[in-house]
């Protein structure tokens, strides 16, 4: 059987990145857009852990931990903004929020 190499992991990361970008661009529900951003961040994490494996060095995994921490902060603030938005506008659909439109 053909062995799994670095390339397969990086390709998986690219596929997840493209799916995440697709979700961010096509979905209207802001919660789902935030989830798609989480998928993109996870694609980056696969890359970092894969190259940590490739160079036999732990630095990539340390960076991946930082990315997880930043993703948690992003999710907390993003969902807080969503709740504030829902209080004021009664909607979480991206195309119904036109507060800054003129």
């Amino acid at each position, binding site marked *: 059987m053909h062995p799994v190499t670095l390339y397969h992991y990086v390709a*998986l990361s690219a596929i997840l990145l493209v799916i995440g970008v697709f979700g961010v661009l096509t979905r209207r529900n802001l919660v789902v857009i935030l989830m798609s951003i989480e998928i993109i961040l996870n694609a980056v994490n696969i890359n970092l852990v894969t190259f940590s494996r490739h160079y036999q060095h732990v630095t990539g995994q340390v960076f*991946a931990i930082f990315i997880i921490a930043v993703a948690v902060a992003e999710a907390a603030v993003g969902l807080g903004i969503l709740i504030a938005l829902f209080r004021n506008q009664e909607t979480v659909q991206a195309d119904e929020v036109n507060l800054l439109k003129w």
Partner: protein
Amino acid sequence: MDVILFLVFSAIAVACALNLVVQRHPISSAISLVGVMASLAILYLLLGGEFIAMAQMIVYAGAIMVLFVFTIMLLNAGAEKRGVKRPWAVYLGIPLLTGLLGIISFLVQGQVQGSPPVILGGFTGGAAGDVGRALFTRYVLPFEVVSVLVLIAILGAMVLARKEIE
């Protein structure tokens, strides 16, 4: 063994990610996100990142998912309405994304050609002790900066989500 594990769990990850994007109801998307996170944790284990696999399970599949599900229930978000379809968006968007994927794969293939196969247990430097040693010696400054960032994010989320009191 490695090949089968990689194929199965990467297929689950991609299928769940696609399901997340396609589903109309946010709760279905949230459940799909759990599938993505869990299968990625298995892939991290295959790559020798034991600590990061556990962190992925606890932080992503645990904490962030609870946050998302709570927000979905709090907002009482129903199924998403289908908007007006713009024909050029449908016929141009997916080919362009596929093209982006092709370009990335082509560039990466040129760079990592002939790399050795990834086998389970080929790298044992990802245990909690090794990660912790790197985190608290060489990368202690970024670690502290991230802890301040998380503190600010907690305060920001509280300020944003609280009820205004007159």
